[in-house]
């Protein structure tokens, strides 16, 4: 066996675990680890400009690949700066391991310099957290951390590492643990056969069915199974914000996103359905609207890896706890075996009805003569990138426009903070994706508010040569806030307007990148083409769009799924 210091063990473990990139920022309590990093070249470290960005980078990587991201920061402020990033990952069930330096164990509790109880601070926003109590434990604790982060319902795991666990000249035996044993943690490996059978019978008996697919289908790698099941049954499919791409956005059976800013047809179908097959979705308040008015005629089959997500807000008639891919596979097999088919006349009538809803109100917006509409920009982006880009987003109107108008045909390509709604997420997330997919187009759709929350990362992009494209839908206001103020506060725009925006073009140039300003409709596509042709350049596209645009459809607050505003004046 090899003898290694705690610091070397950590780095060696990362190598053995197959971690290529970690994202972080050094400081006193982490310096032994940073020294160990310096003395090797297998694990590459990306130095961000703010720890929050390190977490979002790791998160972007995790969302694009399904593998856990890794973050390394120092104690105290380094650790607390990660909290928003960790909470973001937690809300969206993203696998991640955050290694935090800590003051020496002998100093803990004494209010030592840069001491923060990171275990306490992070507890409500992690799947789990652990402290290293002896250097010998390092390999096992880290193995557990990665296992917990990536298995079951994934999530972030924090490992707190007191400085004296990494002392350079104290060496211990190191062996890479192949397996972990956790008697108290056993995520479900398959769904209950009886429940699956019941569900299949209900699918066959349905007359107005809908599949409601969520982020769990992306996380659970069940896109192929979802497509097969939906196609075999000819059922309509709607998706949550987090699930977009798991079912192709251009498929005839796809209804678009559902919920607060869902499509008219998706929300109508949900409301009138007699059977909802919910897969890896959690009936979040941004989807259901008022729970007591939710889908009055529907029976619900709910498949999820996390039992606590089932019947939390909306009661399921048939709960199925298990990995979505294996449960769907079993459903597909049972359907084949049974040779049954849902009532075709009923299904045809249902599709006819759906066609009418589609015809009544597809996704649409009014184009102007002079001002660019944000939706128009997303449509042009879709065209220029051939619908194939990785698109990350920040939070606000631009996020909703991207979700509504960029049709994702593949999972893991739409990357946004759905659960926590973290402004500042999009840019670093795009960087994490680009680093790991250097040959793909990676775009961050953002707003002039959100981008300024992590704009300092332009510097990191220069250092590591990360040519992402930034599409800034510049409406010169905190648009989503302003929309709510228009709708609920008689247009009193309290602090939703930012005076003195920077010149983003010059700013990009100051960091060594390319900036472009687009104001005219006729410049939109040519400039986008030009920007995307610059494969090795980060291009910041500052695009001036109509500041008064609202996102529609929008569900009427406290109404049912089908109560929506379709424009500033039409309410259904």
């Amino acid at each position, binding site marked *: 066996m090899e003898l290694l210091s705690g610091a070397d063990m950590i780095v060696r473990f990362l190598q053995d675990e197959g971690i290529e990139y970690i994202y972080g920022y050094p400081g006193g309590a982490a310096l032994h680890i940073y020294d160990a990093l310096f003395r090797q070249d297998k694990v590459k470290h990306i130095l961000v400009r703010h720890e929050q960005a390190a977490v979002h980078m790791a998160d972007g990587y995790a969302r694009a690949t399904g593998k856990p991201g890794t973050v390394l920061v120092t104690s105290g402020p380094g650790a607390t700066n990660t909290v928003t990033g960790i909470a973001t990952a937690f809300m969206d069930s993203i696998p991640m391991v955050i290694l935090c330096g800590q003051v020496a164990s002998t100093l803990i509790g004494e209010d030592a310099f840069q001491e923060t109880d990171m275990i306490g601070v992070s*507890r*409500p926003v992690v799947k789990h957290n652990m402290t290293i109590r002896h250097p010998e434990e390092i390999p096992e604790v880290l193995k557990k951390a990665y296992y917990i982060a990536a298995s079951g319902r994934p999530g972030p795991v924090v490992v707190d590492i007191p400085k004296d666990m990494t002392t350079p000249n104290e060496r211990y035996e190191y062996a890479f643990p192949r397996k972990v044993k956790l008697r108290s943690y056993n995520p479900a490996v398959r769904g209950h056969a009886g429940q699956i059978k019941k569900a299949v019978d209900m699918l066959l008996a349905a007359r107005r069915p809908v599949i409601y697919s969520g982020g769990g289908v992306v996380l659970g790698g069940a896109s192929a199974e979802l497509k097969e099941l939906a196609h075999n049954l000819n059922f309509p499919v709607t998706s949550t914000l987090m699930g977009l791409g798991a079912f192709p956005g251009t498929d005839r059976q796809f209804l678009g996103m559902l919920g607060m800013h869902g499509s008219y047809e998706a929300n109508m179908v949900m409301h009138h359905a007699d059977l909802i097959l919910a897969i890896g979705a959690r009936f979040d308040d941004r989807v259901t609207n008022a729970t007591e008015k939710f889908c009055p005629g529907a029976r619900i089959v709910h498949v999820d890896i996390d039992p606590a997500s089932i*019947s939390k807000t909306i*009661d399921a008639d048939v709960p199925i706890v298990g990995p979505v891919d294996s449960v769907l596979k079993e459903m597909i097999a049972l359907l084949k075996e049974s040779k049954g088919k849902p009532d075709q006349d009923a299904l045809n009538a249902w599709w006819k009805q759906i066609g009418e809803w589609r015809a009544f109100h597809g996704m649409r917006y009014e184009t102007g003569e002079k001002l660019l509409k944000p939706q128009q920009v997303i449509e042009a982006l879709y065209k220029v990138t051939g619908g194939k880009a990785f698109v990350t987003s920040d939070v606000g109107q631009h996020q909703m426009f991207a979700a509504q108008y960029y049709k994702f045909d593949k999972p893991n390509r739409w990357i946004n903070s759905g659960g926590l709604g973290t402004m500042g997420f999009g840019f670093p997330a795009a960087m994490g994706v680009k680093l790991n997919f250097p040959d793909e187009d990676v775009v961050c759709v953002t707003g002039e508010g959100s981008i300024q929350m992590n704009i300092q990362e332009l510097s990191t992009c220069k250092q590591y040569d990360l040519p992402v494209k930034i599409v800034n839908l510049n409406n010169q206001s905190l648009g989503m806030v302003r929309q709510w103020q228009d709708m609920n506060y008689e247009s009193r725009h309290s602090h939703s307007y930012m005076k003195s925006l920077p010149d983003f073009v010059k700013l990009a140039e100051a960091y060594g990148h390319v900036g472009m300003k687009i104001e005219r409709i006729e410049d939109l596509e040519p400039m986008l083409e030009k920007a995307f042709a610059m494969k090795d350049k980060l291009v910041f596209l500052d695009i001036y769009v109509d500041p008064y645009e609202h996102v529609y459809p929008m569900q009427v607050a406290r109404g049912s799924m089908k109560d929506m505003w379709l424009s500033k004046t039409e309410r259904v």
Partner: protein
Amino acid sequence: MRRIISVLLENEPGALSRVVGLFSQRNYNIETLTVAPTEDETLSRLTVTTSGSDKVIEQITKQLNKLIEVVKLVDLTEGAHIERELMLIKLKATGAQRAEIKRTVDIFRGQIVDVTSTVYTVQLTGDSDKLDAFIQAIGATAVLEVVRSGVSGIARGEKVLSI
């Protein structure tokens, strides 16, 4: 409805704070909480009494189960069970009251475990209702101090909570 949830927990630093944190974070209430290591020193047994609708209780048990350090749990109130709480209570005991208190303690099968010329300290075990009833019988004016352990519980019959 009041429920008694019994939990086997890894006996590790921080595990308890996770359980307590969960209750406050998700707005569940804790009425009583007891915790101590079991015969297997790697495990703690924790008993929590709480109340809420069936839906809330279902969420509480599911969320508890999600905590990595929770090994197993059972809602004791779903079956026949035994519930006990220990109370130490200090009572003003002078003159004629002394005999009266002694009688009440006997009726409740308590024990006087410490005596001064003016004070009795009484030990009493039973379910929580019995302890409440005792305090009521004695009367609030005589009560100087109350310490209650919180509820411990165990299922009746063959059923055991173990790994």
